[in-house]
């Protein structure tokens, strides 16, 4: 990106500082998206300055930067939107987490998505625990019909669990099928998260 040259050092410093803040605010984006946003901001500043070239350059610069607003706020929506696009295109968990975190404040649906993502993390942890403690991890059932999917401590209480809390020592029914079942559930939740994100993105466009 070609930087704009200013007549005074102070104007140059103000401009450089603003562009630097824009770089920081867009650092989460892909290189292509980031360059696109930065080029457009730079172009806007240049066009504004050119259209007001008869006025004091520093004052004009301050005016355009004031109109653009603080990059951390102004670019928030654009960055969040572009990040969802990147997450749904790449299926990359890193982009997915970033997109969820960026949009967490935008509505209840993102809180639901975030809870789903916590479940998404829980299942791989349970798979690892199953390998370490095969007898204490699984789908445990009790005679009264309650169940626990997860880790059960030797005393029969506590641990990571998905299901009813604090069941007495029950019978494990999945055995070695626990790992493929957990893996399948994790994949289904992941597909569900991506699907919900796509729905949200579509609704946002509407």
């Amino acid at each position, binding site marked *: 990106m070609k930087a704009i040259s200013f007549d005074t050092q102070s104007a140059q410093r103000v401009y450089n500082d603003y562009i630097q803040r824009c770089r920081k605010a867009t650092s989460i984006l892909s290189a292509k998206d980031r360059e696109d946003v930065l080029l457009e901001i730079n172009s806007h500043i240049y066009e504004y300055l050119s259209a007001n070239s008869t006025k004091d350059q520093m004052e004009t610069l301050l005016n355009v930067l004031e109109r653009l607003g603080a990059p951390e706020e*102004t670019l928030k929506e654009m960055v969040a*939107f572009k990040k969802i696009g990147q997450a749904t295109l790449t299926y990359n968990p890193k982009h997915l987490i970033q997109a969820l975190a960026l949009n967490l404040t935008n509505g209840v649906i993102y809180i639901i998505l975030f809870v789903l993502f916590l479940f998404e993390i829980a299942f791989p942890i349970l798979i690892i625990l199953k390998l370490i403690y095969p007898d204490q991890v699984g789908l445990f059932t009790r005679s009264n019909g309650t169940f626990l999917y997860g880790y059960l401590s030797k005393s029969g209480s506590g641990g990571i669990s998905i299901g009813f809390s604090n069941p007495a020592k029950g019978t494990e029914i999945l055995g070695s099928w626990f790992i493929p079942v957990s893996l399948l559930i994790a994949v289904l939740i992941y597909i569900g998260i991506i699907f919900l994100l796509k729905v949200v993105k579509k609704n946002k*466009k509407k």
Partner: protein
Amino acid sequence: MYIVYLCIMKTEFIENWHSQLRKGLLPLFVFMILENKKCYGYELIQDIKVGFDIDVGEGTLYPLLVRLAKEGLLTHQWEEQPSGIPRKYYSISIEGKSALAAMKTYAGLIFKKINE
């Protein structure tokens, strides 16, 4: 005192409504301008100001342009300039033109109802 309070409330309500209406109509204005020519961001802001008497903020326009482009209603291309600082020109797509026609029809119906 109560009457003054009510007047302030009403003024605030009308101002909020104006703001919401302007925001709602903004995609229509963007499409209407781009129907005749391609524009870059700064140019669009100026044209909206002249054509519709609305001073749209950069923080409102640019995210909108990103959304409309992602939806396929606008296309864009970078054009090099003698200054070395390129311009990002936006154009309306075929889908955008269809959307514009539908929006104009609907807006026309609403305004007709209002004026009846």
